[in-house]
């Protein structure tokens, strides 16, 4: 566990170390003018040595630290996959994520303030001296400063929302091992590109929002006048708005190119520093860690591979141990030898037993999950299925996942129907009005954490904003309509909009572990053909083979379902890691390869292995290369 913490600290330290060059680039970009290159340089130098510059830099370091610790707190190796839009909304409004969003929002303001100080000129302060019409000198509100701060808040907030939607906290492991520096070098251009485009979209959305809601500061001003509290009145008097200058909430005011450029560059700066912190965190945390297979000291035994494998928490350690197992079984004969060795007094193959048992239990778990899911889908939408499905799912250990309920919700509401038609004919002729279905959807909704808050104005405000950023105007209107019409049909309409193939993704969300277990087992069995001196593998070979064959059958059946074999759209231009979307294909390929690896190695010797006739038939197919 300490290892993970040290890795996180190292990644944060690197992120802080990378901050000065990024800031320098940002300063140069924001100050650059073609006409006065020398003046640019002198201004930059002056800024970097000034007290405010140093202070804002320290603030930025603090922000990076907080972002880094948030990553450590929120990262996951098993993505949470929302099977419907309503589940997604539930995730977004989960208090945990909500706090995360608020913190990001706040940090966005801080970074924006630092940017404002750095850019100087008209952005520098919140107030500026002006004279009222009667010649009375006063402080006025600098809207340029305000717009920048609000932009920071908006970008930070939308960043964290998008993070939830795209599973940005998901840490994926790579099939290709590379040194950290090379990996970072490879990803850096991608991160810069992502940050720039994301900043562009955020700024666009922000501008649109500001255009509509830009009057708010003025209203606030007016409201403050009515307040009797002295402090606020003082504040109000302090910041008088200078109405003579061009108001920024008009189209003409917002079409100021220099303003747009500065907004975009500071948003890019903000996103870039955060994304680099995220990237470094991912790279450091997923680095291969070599666990000792066995230790000669008993106090170290809890750090050994068989022990770590069997532990449930934290998940990342289990994943690292499985990754290490897969690699050692491929590449290191000396460590394989330790796996096959017998314990000194007693002569029991404890290492192999622990490893194979854990891998097999992982695979069996996946098989059961697939079978249960398939049964539920097969009896599509009948009341019996859900209850039996729930019974099957409930005893499963915490190892997985927050979404089984939503998986079943998807299977229930699987009928494709255009949401708009169901909107205008909400109750009578829509298939969702059937009482059985009501009964089915109700428990799911009650389980979800946001139940009961749907009708609050809270959502009414947030939902359109969120969706307009993600899918555009149509969603905006649709959600408005849906909220204004039937409240009861709301839930159904939303839960009907199942994200395609999400349930299949959710089933295989943790399949990276299974992939490693398959690789580790098959390589170890392959190596045992020539390296296993005591025959420890032979005793478990029948169970390994039958486990793999049963899983193969379940996977084959699963891929016959609609949606299961459709490929997700590849999205390359986002920081979110979409590896989890294709894990099921990877699992299928790895499973086949693993069985072939064993059959190719053992060949006809497999006929001597005790397995059931049905499995033998299946195995014969593999021996003849007909799968």
């Amino acid at each position: 566990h300490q290892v993970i913490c040290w890795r996180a600290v190292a990644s944060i330290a690197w992120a802080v170390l990378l901050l000065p060059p990024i800031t320098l680039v940002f300063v140069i970009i924001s100050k650059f003018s073609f006409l006065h290159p020398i003046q640019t340089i002198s201004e930059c130098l002056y800024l970097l040595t000034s007290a405010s510059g140093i202070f804002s830099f320290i603030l930025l370091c603090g922000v990076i630290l907080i972002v880094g610790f948030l990553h450590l707190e929120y990262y996951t190796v098993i993505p949470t996959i929302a099977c419907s839009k309503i589940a997604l909304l539930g995730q977004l409004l989960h208090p945990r994520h909500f706090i995360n969003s608020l913190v990001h929002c706040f940090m966005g303001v801080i970074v924006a303030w630092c940017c404002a100080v750095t850019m100087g000129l008209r952005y520098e302060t919140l107030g500026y001296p002006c004279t009222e019409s009667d010649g009375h000198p006063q402080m006025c509100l600098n809207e340029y400063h305000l717009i920048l701060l609000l932009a920071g808040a908006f970008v930070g907030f939308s960043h964290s929302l998008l993070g939830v939607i795209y599973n940005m906290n998901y840490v994926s492991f790579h099939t290709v091992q590379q040194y950290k520096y090379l990996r970072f070098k490879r990803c850096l251009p991608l991160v810069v590109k992502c940050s720039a485009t994301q900043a562009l979209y955020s700024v666009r959305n922000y501008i649109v929002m500001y255009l509509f809601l830009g009057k708010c500061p003025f209203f606030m001003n007016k409201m403050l006048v009515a307040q009797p509290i002295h402090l606020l009145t003082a504040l109000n008097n302090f910041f008088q708005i200078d109405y003579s200058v061009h108001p920024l909430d008009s189209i003409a005011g917002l079409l100021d190119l220099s303003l747009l450029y500065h907004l975009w560059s500071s948003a890019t700066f903000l996103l870039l520093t955060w994304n680099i912190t995220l990237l470094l965190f991912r790279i450091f945390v997923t680095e291969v860690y070599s666990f000792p297979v066995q230790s000669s000291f008993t106090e170290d035994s809890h750090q050994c591979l068989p022990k770590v494998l069997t532990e449930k928490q934290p998940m990342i350690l289990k994943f690292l141990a499985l990754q290490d197992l897969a690699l050692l079984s491929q590449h290191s004969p000396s460590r394989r030898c330790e796996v096959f060795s017998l314990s000194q007094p007693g002569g029991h193959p404890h290492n192999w037993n622990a490893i194979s048992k854990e891998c097999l239990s992982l695979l069996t778990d996946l098989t059961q999950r697939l079978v249960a899911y398939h049964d539920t889908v097969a009896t599509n939408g009948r009341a019996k299925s859900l209850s039996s499905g729930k019974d099957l799912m409930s005893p499963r250990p915490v190892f997985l996942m927050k979404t089984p309920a939503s998986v079943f919700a998807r299977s229930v509401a699987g009928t494709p129907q255009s949401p708009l038609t169901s909107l205008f004919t909400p109750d009578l002729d829509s298939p969702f009005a059937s009482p059985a279905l009501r009964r089915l959807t109700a428990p799911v909704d009650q389980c979800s954490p946001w139940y009961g808050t749907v009708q609050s104005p809270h959502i009414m405000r947030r939902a359109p904003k969120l969706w307009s950023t993600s899918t555009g105007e149509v969603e905006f209107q649709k959600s408005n309509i849906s909220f204004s019409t039937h409240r009861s049909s709301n839930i159904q309409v939303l839960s009907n909009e199942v994200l395609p193939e999400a349930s299949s993704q959710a089933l295989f969300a943790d399949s990276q572990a299974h992939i490693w277990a398959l690789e580790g087992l098959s390589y170890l069995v392959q190596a045992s053909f020539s390296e296993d001196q005591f025959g420890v593998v032979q005793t478990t070979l029948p169970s390994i083979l039958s486990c793999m064959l049963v899983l193969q059958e379940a996977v084959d059946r699963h891929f016959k379902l609609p949606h299961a074999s459709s490929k997700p759209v590849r999205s390359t231009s986002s920081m979110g890691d979409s590896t989890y979307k294709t894990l099921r294909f990877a699992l299928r390929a790895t499973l086949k390869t693993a069985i072939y690896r064993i059959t190719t190695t053992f060949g006809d010797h497999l006929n001597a292995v005790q397995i059931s006739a049905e499995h033998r038939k299946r195995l014969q197919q593999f021996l003849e290369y007909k799968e």
Partner: protein
Amino acid sequence: MCSLALFPPPLPSGQTTLCESNNELLSGASTEDRLKQESSPLSLHFPRESLKLHSRTESSSKAAFLDHSETLWMRSAAAWRDGGFTGLLNEITNSHTEVPKWLSMSSGCILALLRWVSSFHGSLFPHLTLSSEDMIAEFSQVLNWSDCVVRAFAWHPHTDKFAVALLDDSIKIYNPKSATTPTLKHRLQRSVAAVQWKPLCASALAVACQNCLLVWHVDPCSLSTRPSSGCAQVLSHPGHSPVTSIAWSPSGSLLLSASPMDSTMMVWDVAAESCVPLQRVGGGGVSFLSWSPDGSHVLASTPSALFRVWETRMWTCERWPCVKGRCQSGCWSPDGSRLLFTVQGEMVIYALTFTDAPGQLSHSGPQAAAVVADLSETTFSTPDGDIVVGGEIQSLVWDPRGERLAVLLKGDPQAADRPAIIAVFKTRANPIFELLPCGFVQGEAGAEPRLMQFHPNFQHGALLTVCWSNGRITHVPFYFVSAGVPHFGLSGSPLLPHPQQRPADFVNQSQHHHL
């Protein structure tokens, strides 16, 4: 060091090489043996006339339609879609009547600047100016690729089936145990440069095409003769075309692809359709890949005088600059400890030995390559006149047991007395590594060898499959007893059908030899 002067003289014309038995190559007159060979299900003949070739490429179909004037915006959008930034600039420059003068002027200037820069880049790496067909022909392992009926060939690593890519951009899969011969066609499957079966899998076939990489999944139990294009995964990456070389990892998990236009080498996770680009500065591209059979190293040669040897655990590489030309071909010994390669412009075979464990490659690897064979031109006198054999090498293949090495010599297509020919060496690793002469493999009169590959698990020695310029595919067995320890893990493959199709006395002889 072995040289061609030690070889037995080539056969007179009309004789073809049949097999190796009792340590010598046996030949036969072609007519009688051709009949025998034709009866074998795996010996194929693709006459050029039987193939339906594309009369014109897709882009030229524009001329068949009437000219239709669109607005400038539409044309610009189309140009952006088809030709990217340069296409857009071209369009703006060409339609100078409709756009403001300053715009057409400036786009013309930018275009000229881009061309100048690219010509500068092209003068550094001359191969970048080639068209993509020419580039495949230049860097392919196939001799005279553009004129070849059989453009690529691949044995399945575990069973007796193989895939043949033909001049008409189709791929046929032959399996002696099944009556169906699936034909694979795909819209994107053009100018196939290489095909390779995925190891530890019955169905996946990777195809290197002009613009992308296709991975076909051909169900071996299916009776369909035309699998739909839905069975193919398309893997593409911007800038990564044409793909001239592919290599599966021996464990079947990863696929490498390389293009001479792209200095990055792609490591594909095929199931996830994701790739990791591995980039190193220098070389101007990657032209040829070869994964060592034990999976620890990858040879990646570049179009300039430089090749790299990657180790596959952490994907770091060693640079090997050559003196004369680029690395044309290379092959690994079965245990992955020795690399043989040839350099364009030189007539020798070099060897590199990797003795240490993977991971420490960069510290104590070999310091320089050793010359193990000299293939400079040698004149043999035959009844038909003098024949000059030797010269530059097109490709090298080593059989999976590491006992026979086949070398395809380019020859000179203009001169009649300098034919392209396959020279086969015996290889011996102990006590020192050396190559010993075995003989030349020749086909019918007038047929040149174009492409060759060893069968991955032939029980009685080695089986060399040769594709000839007349569209014929023949198999030449080499019967010998392996000197090294028998290989584990290859017993899964059933016995080959070939021994029955050979003249029976050869079998007897070879078995005699075993005893």
